[in-house]
């Protein structure tokens, strides 16, 4: 029962000692280079959505071997935790393939999807962007109003009572509680009191996460939480604290993992293998119930470029074909709201993810770094594309063609992508609805996508 938290705590304290630099600078890149070569994994830029089952299975095999041989490093104890093949098999066998999430009439099923699955993806709406404190409730409400929303995570806060929220201070606790309260209040106002919240992103630390666990005003046991990964295949005691709390409180726990393209895992091939391996880390180390995937480009911080869409497709196919794990694919775009480019990027990411077997987490615009630069409308388009692709039975080959066409519209502009406009300029903040001209832009791009072969249900 290696994946039980007490066993993890034991291994974390008694595993073999290793210097962090040895683990990160030598062990990870060398083993990754070896498995990529051994399993013959090759990135083909011509096909961002490959229809090659053998390649997907090779990525899975490489990831599994990588995970078993490299292990997971605890930064606090400087020890490596290892897991045997049997333990991996046991964890994979016993992991549920779906969960009932949320409460009452707002409850949904969040489950495993197959490659080219005709069932629509579970749609988590989240910009992963910070908003002005005064507009935070409106931003939460605007997201709650989205028709395809199955679950919600951010908007985030960066100030509490006018002061910057700083990690591990009372302002973080206060801001995290305010975030949870606003989400809960917005859910009630929107008539979705039982909606599944994956919350709260403002709470970066273990203490702040524990502080927001309250069924009356904050995060309920029926909600979801996240445990982040540090640099590749590393954890620490704060992350283990979060995992332990979530299990005892009863929340569903997601493993938040973003492999960095160009960093320790190398290029597209290593990034896909690492992102796949993270599913095992989440399952065995953090007892994660689902995997939240956001691989991103070292230089741009996005995953909508050609090489990143290939990564998204490959890890999704590898996991969907070889396990029944529940997972989602989180879009990180280059352009900001109010631009056609952001809509194209989100559509490409959603299409790639959906046909490859992932659920959707849409989406972080403007490289996830510009305050107020996120709106529900780009996420709406992404989720509509996901529903359409699944319902019409779109194949990977068909998606590949459309994604290539979409890439031709924006990939040259990635290095200098437009930042776009803030939420307050694109939405009527008091009503929490998009302004007519912004809605027109969305409708025009949706028409364009329809012309490219996306058969929207409505």
């Amino acid at each position, binding site marked *: 029962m290696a994946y039980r938290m007490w066993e993890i705590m034991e291994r974390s304290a008694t595993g073999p000692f290793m210097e962090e630099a040895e683990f990160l600078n030598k062990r990870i890149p060398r083993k990754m280079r070896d498995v990529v070569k051994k399993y013959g994994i090759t990135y083909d830029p011509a096909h961002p959505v490959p229809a090659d089952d053998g390649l997907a299975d090779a990525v899975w095999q490489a990831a599994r071997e990588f995970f078993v041989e490299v292990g997971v490093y605890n930064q606090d104890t400087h020890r490596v935790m290892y897991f045997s093949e049997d333990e991996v098999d046991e964890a994979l066998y016993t992991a549920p393939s779906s969960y009932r999430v949320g409460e009452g009439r707002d409850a949904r099923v969040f489950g495993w999807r197959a490659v080219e699955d005709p069932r629509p993806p579970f749609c988590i709406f989240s910009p992963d962007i910070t908003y002005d404190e005064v507009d935070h409730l409106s931003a939460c409400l605007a997201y709650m109003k989205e028709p395809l929303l199955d679950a919600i995570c951010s908007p985030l806060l960066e100030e509490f009572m006018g002061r910057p929220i700083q990690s591990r201070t009372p302002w973080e606790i206060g801001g995290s509680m305010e975030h949870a309260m606003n989400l809960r209040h917005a859910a009630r106002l929107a008539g979705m009191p039982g909606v599944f919240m994956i919350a709260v992103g403002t709470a970066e630390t273990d203490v702040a996460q524990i502080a927001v666990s309250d069924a009356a005003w904050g995060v309920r046991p029926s909600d979801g939480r996240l445990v982040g990964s540090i640099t590749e295949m590393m954890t620490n005691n704060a992350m283990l604290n979060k995992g332990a709390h979530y299990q005892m409180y009863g929340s569903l726990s997601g493993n938040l993992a973003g492999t960095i393209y160009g960093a320790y895992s190398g290029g597209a091939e290593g990034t896909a293998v690492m992102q796949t391996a993270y599913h095992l880390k989440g399952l065995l180390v953090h007892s994660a119930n689902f995997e939240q995937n956001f691989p991103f480009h070292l*230089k741009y911080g996005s995953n909508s470029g050609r090489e990143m869409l290939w990564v998204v497709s490959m890890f999704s196919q590898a996991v969907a074909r070889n396990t029944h794990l529940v997972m989602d694919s989180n879009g990180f775009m280059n352009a900001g709201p109010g631009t056609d480019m952001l809509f194209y990027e989100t559509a490409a990411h959603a299409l790639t993810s959906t046909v490859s077997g992932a659920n959707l987490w849409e989406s972080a615009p403007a490289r996830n770094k510009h305050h107020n630069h996120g709106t529900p409308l780009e996420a709406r388009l992404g989720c509509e594309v996901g529903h359409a692709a699944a319902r019409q039975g779109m194949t990977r080959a068909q998606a590949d063609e459309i994604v290539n066409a979409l890439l031709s519209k924006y990939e040259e502009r990635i290095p200098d992508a437009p930042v776009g406009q803030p939420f307050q300029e694109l939405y009527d903040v008091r009503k929490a609805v998009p302004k007519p001209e912004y809605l027109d832009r969305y409708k025009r791009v949706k028409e364009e996508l329809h012309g490219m072969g996306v058969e929207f249900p409505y």
Partner: protein
Amino acid sequence: MEQVQRLRTALAEGDEDTSTDLARALVEQGADLPAVIAELALEMEDVGRRFERMDIFLPEVLFSADAMKAAMAVFGPELAKGAARERKGTVVVGTARGDMHQIGKDLVALFLGIAGYEVVDMGADVDPLEFIHRAEETKAEIIGISSLMTTTMPGATEVIDILKDKGLRDRVKIIVGGAPTSQEWADKIGADGWAEDSSGAVDVVKELTATESGRA
């Protein structure tokens, strides 16, 4: 010269063993080591440029840096017999308090080292006062603070505030960076430099240390 070229190739390919062997051979032949090292520095600059273009990735840079270290481990004792090496400057780096994300800081440390600076890497989640104490101990010219989350950006502000309170603000330069940061924010908190990526950070450090030298 051929051996120097082969050593450059060993660096480019990240071949530690060959690098060590060729370095030993050059020492035995009585080669002009400062000239050899200058050649190797050119090779590492090229490695950096290829990484910046993403023609190669971090593992290749790490392997090249290891090969460079292997050669320098051979040259070091020989150089110690001669004149002292030129001191470019010392930079203390770390991630802001509460921030566990190290990749940006790691890249900056790696490329500053390749560029010839002494780097004091304090790791992740560094207390603001510890940055200052370490800079004082090592007589560092610059403190570099990385933040990957908006909630840890105030950690950089704290370092600047404490430096002011201790009357040390003019003794050390502060550079900041990380995904959610910007030049605008760096200006707002009174930092001396900001960079979008690791190569930009090296440029900023070169600029700031050149300014320091000019003042001296």
